[in-house]
């Protein structure tokens, strides 16, 4: 959440302490009913329906403000004429090391990508560590070295940080939070609320690699696969795209909840429908196979180095070529269109020519994927 929300929360709090108890309750009473579920479930962290419910029923009533309420992956604020993007993300992935990355590189890439999806050039990151008593120092060294490499490769610096240690059993090895700040490029304004009927839907490459790479290493699930996590910084790909066409409406990285959650969010935010072509969606053979075996739909599996772009119809081909001209986007594809029909619903044309809904994830069977 952006710093502005902290300010809002603080002032709310200081305001209420001076009131009597009944007024306190009134001040905090939410416009929506309290959630019926009285405890946090793993599904609340899925990025799907339960996460959305938590935002709507707990966070926004207490912390909401015009900047936060946009619910994009980053807050955009203006200071002295400069537009800044601010974002934060926590990483709890299990295991800490996996094919194609680790929690350290993931924490750097994830936050860079959230800035990049706002059209910002990432400048600086913070890093905060929650360490479990007993964590081998060597593990921490490996993670921090990986963070340094990822940041250096992306041309950003980690300029502030924090460390906390909790008793053994109170955390699982190591959790990381990173925040980031970036400068939004001139004349760029991206938001999930800007998709319009007719727009093209593009993805920058193969979907589902990260989730499958993680699952392959989970206890009880070990299966052999050559799939690497796609964990990567996307800001140079975004620059390539934005320089090719000014008509990009929205960028998102389909992390938790996968492509389906991202597209459902955009369609809800923009009050439009979407129609996808199933055969056009790039999914590796190995990922399809693993999903088949595990009973998963690759459209719900997490990515950490892919973006979804919603682009004006006239710019679709130029945007696709721009993505494909960049090493990180060489397998980019146009996968569908924004429609006026069935608003807030993502529908997919199957290989048989019939249609089906691509819904938002209801529960979560794959916790701690990032």
């Amino acid at each position, binding site marked *: 959440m952006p710093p502005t929300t902290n300010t809002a929360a603080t002032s709310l709090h200081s305001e209420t302490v001076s009131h009597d108890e009944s007024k306190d309750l009134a001040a905090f009473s939410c416009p929506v009913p309290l959630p019926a*579920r009285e*405890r*946090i*479930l*793993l*599904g609340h962290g899925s990025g799907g*329906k*339960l996460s959305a419910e938590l935002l709507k029923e707990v966070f926004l009533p207490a912390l909401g403000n015009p900047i936060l309420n946009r619910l994009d992956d980053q807050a955009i604020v203006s200071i002295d004429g400069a537009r800044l993007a601010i974002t934060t993300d926590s990483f709890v992935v299990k295991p800490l090391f996996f094919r194609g990355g680790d929690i350290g590189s993931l924490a750097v890439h994830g936050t860079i990508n959230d800035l990049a999806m706002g059209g910002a050039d990432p400048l600086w990151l913070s890093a905060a560590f929650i360490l479990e008593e007993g964590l081998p120092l060597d593990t921490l060294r490996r993670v921090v070295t990986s963070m340094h490499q990822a940041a250096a490769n992306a041309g950003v610096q980690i300029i502030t940080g924090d460390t906390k240690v909790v008793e053994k059993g109170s955390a699982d090895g190591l959790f990381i939070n990173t925040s980031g700040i970036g400068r939004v490029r001139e004349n760029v304004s991206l938001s999930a609320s800007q998709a319009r009927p007719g727009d093209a839907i593009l993805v920058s490459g193969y979907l589902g690699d990260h989730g499958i790479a993680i699952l392959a290493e989970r206890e*009880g*699930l070990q299966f052999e696969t050559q799939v690497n996590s796609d964990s990567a910084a996307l800001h140079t790909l975004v620059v390539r795209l934005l320089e090719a066409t000014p008509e990009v409406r929205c960028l998102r990285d389909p992390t938790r909840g996968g492509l389906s959650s991202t597209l459902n969010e955009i369609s809800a935010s923009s009050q439009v429908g979407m129609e996808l072509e199933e055969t056009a969606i790039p999914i590796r*053979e190995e990922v*399809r*196979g693993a999903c*088949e075996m*595990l009973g998963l739909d690759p459209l719900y599996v997490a990515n950490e180095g892919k973006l979804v772009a919603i682009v004006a119809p006239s710019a679709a081909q130029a945007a696709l070529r721009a993505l494909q001209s960049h090493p990180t986007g060489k397998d980019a594809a146009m996968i569908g269109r924004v429609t006026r029909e*069935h608003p807030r*619903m993502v*529908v997919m044309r*199957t*290989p*048989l*020519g*019939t*249609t*089906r*809904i691509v*819904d938002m994830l*209801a*529960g979560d*069977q794959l916790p701690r994927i990032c």
Partner: protein
Amino acid sequence: MKYLDEYRDARIARALAAEIRRRSTRPWVLMEICGGQTHTLMRYGIDELLDDSVQLVHGPGCPVCVTPLETIDRAIALARRADVTLLSYGDMLRVPGSETDLFHVKAEGGDIRVVYSPADAVQFARSRPGRKVVFFAIGFETTAPAHAMAVLQAERLDLTNFSLLVSHVLVPPAIRTLLRSPRNCVQGFIAPGHVCTVVGCREYEDLVREFRVPIVVGGFEPVDLLEAIRMLVIQLEEGRAEVENQYVRSVQYEGNRPAQEAIARVFEISDRKWRGIGSISVSGLRLREEYAAFDAERIFELADVCAEEPAECISAEVLLGHKKPTDCTAFGTRCTPDKPLGAPMVSSEGACAAYYQYRRHLVTL
């Protein structure tokens, strides 16, 4: 994917659908038994492809859906015990019991873990001798051999901390109940391919003789199901009623003998309750007396945990094919996968959830 994409081939699927439309002189009412088959029909929009040339109704073959409410309550009671670790297939965690579900019990501190295989559950019990490890063994004939093997393995390892909470149901008695119903309208069945891989086709011969209804053992991919539907339509148009096997790449007439022997050694046939339907005689499996030491119901004395199902849900009508999920007034409004009223909305293989997940853009709520 080799051996899979061929069965999703659009050209073959469209040709089969065209043949079904051409051959069908009236909208025959056909039922697929298995939830996996329902899921495929909905996911690929096969109903759309067939254009009302046949009417597809959906059977009771989602094991998650038909697991009785009181069995869920018993699993919840076990998971709340400080000395028990409950191991389960992931799907079961969201299924609502009378008051809560296993996800919430887990959030309250219950030691509940998801495993993919009963063999993993045995290994888990072996590695934690101090814990009472209960595996929630649900399913049709398909999962029964693996559960039987888990018990045999635990016996071989002399494990005293491993047990099963069994909720095993059998397909043929359910079909028989359905066919005996005066309201039955189903004229042909797609039998569940994976169940028949284990038990073979013999039991279905009895049903065909008794009720003169065609049964085709079918697979789970779009082309499998379209071919099975075509075979049923041809039988119906020709006035035949036979057992035929579409899923020949997996099912042999006699089934899998070693698997059947493992089931027979560990389990015996018993009456079972089906969620949404009620009690059906000789429709399930329970652990034999010799394996009582592995029976969580006996070890933990769970018989007191009973539950009555809420009346508002029409799941019985849906599970028996009398009604479609969209006939329910609560469908998609008061009952969604997120907040299910009844069992068929819970698992992605349940008929209501499959309709909701894939087809609700075609119905007006």
